[in-house]
């Protein structure tokens, strides 16, 4: 009993390092939580707008779900390469880590290109922020808001990955730096899981 209490105290007392993580990781997690709440707010607003809509478009007629699935495949795969890159960086294999980071960057760039193509296609079909040919007017607004905001995050991620790759090549970054870029990238993938399900599938 005493041992359990002591162990629990040790675990929670924290001292100068309550999370047993460096300041960069803790700050990155705080950023992820707050940014995640922003996306949660957008998705909740979308959910209620959809509840209010009298005629929400059938996604299967608007989007090619196979195409969206391919985008999802690219993003999930880039998350796996990023995780492998972080692992390699932790093991001190800098060249391997850099290759995985570059692969992740390529995945992010491919995703952005696919999203740009999707936007171009839908805009060509008449999708606008305030109107669209398929149903409720807010559909277009939420489509551009959610995918645009997420795409901006992917773009920022690509820039961060490029900087990480360059810094790694010059020996300016540590394994911690690669891990922070990785945390951000996985967050971008995590958000897509929600957008894919709630906006494209349901």
């Amino acid at each position, binding site marked *: 009993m005493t041992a359990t209490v002591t162990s629990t105290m040790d675990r929670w007392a924290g001292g100068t390092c309550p999370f047993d993580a460096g300041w960069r990781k803790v700050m990155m997690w705080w950023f992820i939580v707050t940014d995640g709440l922003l996306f949660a707010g957008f998705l909740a607003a979308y959910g209620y707008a959809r509840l209010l809509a009298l005629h929400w478009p059938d996604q299967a007629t608007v989007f090619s779900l*196979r195409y969206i699935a391919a985008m999802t495949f690219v993003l999930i795969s880039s998350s796996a390469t990023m995780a492998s890159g972080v692992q390699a960086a932790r093991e001190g294999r800098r060249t391997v880590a850099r290759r995985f980071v570059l692969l992740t960057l390529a995945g992010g760039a491919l995703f952005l290109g696919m999203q740009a193509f999707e936007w171009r296609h839908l805009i060509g079909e008449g999708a606008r922020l305030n109107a669209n040919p398929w149903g409720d007017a807010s559909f277009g607004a939420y489509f551009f808001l959610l995918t645009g905001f997420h795409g901006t995050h992917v773009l920022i991620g690509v820039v961060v990955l490029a900087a990480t790759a360059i810094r790694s090549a010059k020996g300016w970054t540590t394994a911690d730096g690669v891990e922070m870029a990785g945390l951000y990238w996985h967050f971008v993938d995590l958000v897509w899981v929600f957008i894919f399900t709630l906006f494209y*599938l349901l």
Partner: protein
Amino acid sequence: MKSYWRAWGILLAFTVVMLWADGAAIPRLAFTVFVITAMLTKASIIGAHFMHLRSERASLVLTVVVGLLVTGTILFVLIAPDAVRIHHMVSVR
């Protein structure tokens, strides 16, 4: 490194099954419950394996997960009665 690719395979499998379910003749409620469960499972796998939450200290994990869950519950569940009420008001009009 193998565990990451195993997680990748599981995520991919979930995505394929979700797409299959979208095309299958499944009752709407069952489909909704299934895809939301699959979505949360996928999110947990990304958080636990790729973001290494499973190996972080409990204080960090609980702060992150509980914070998101509580706010998520407020946004998606506790506001729902008001949203439904507004929906009915608009429908009546």
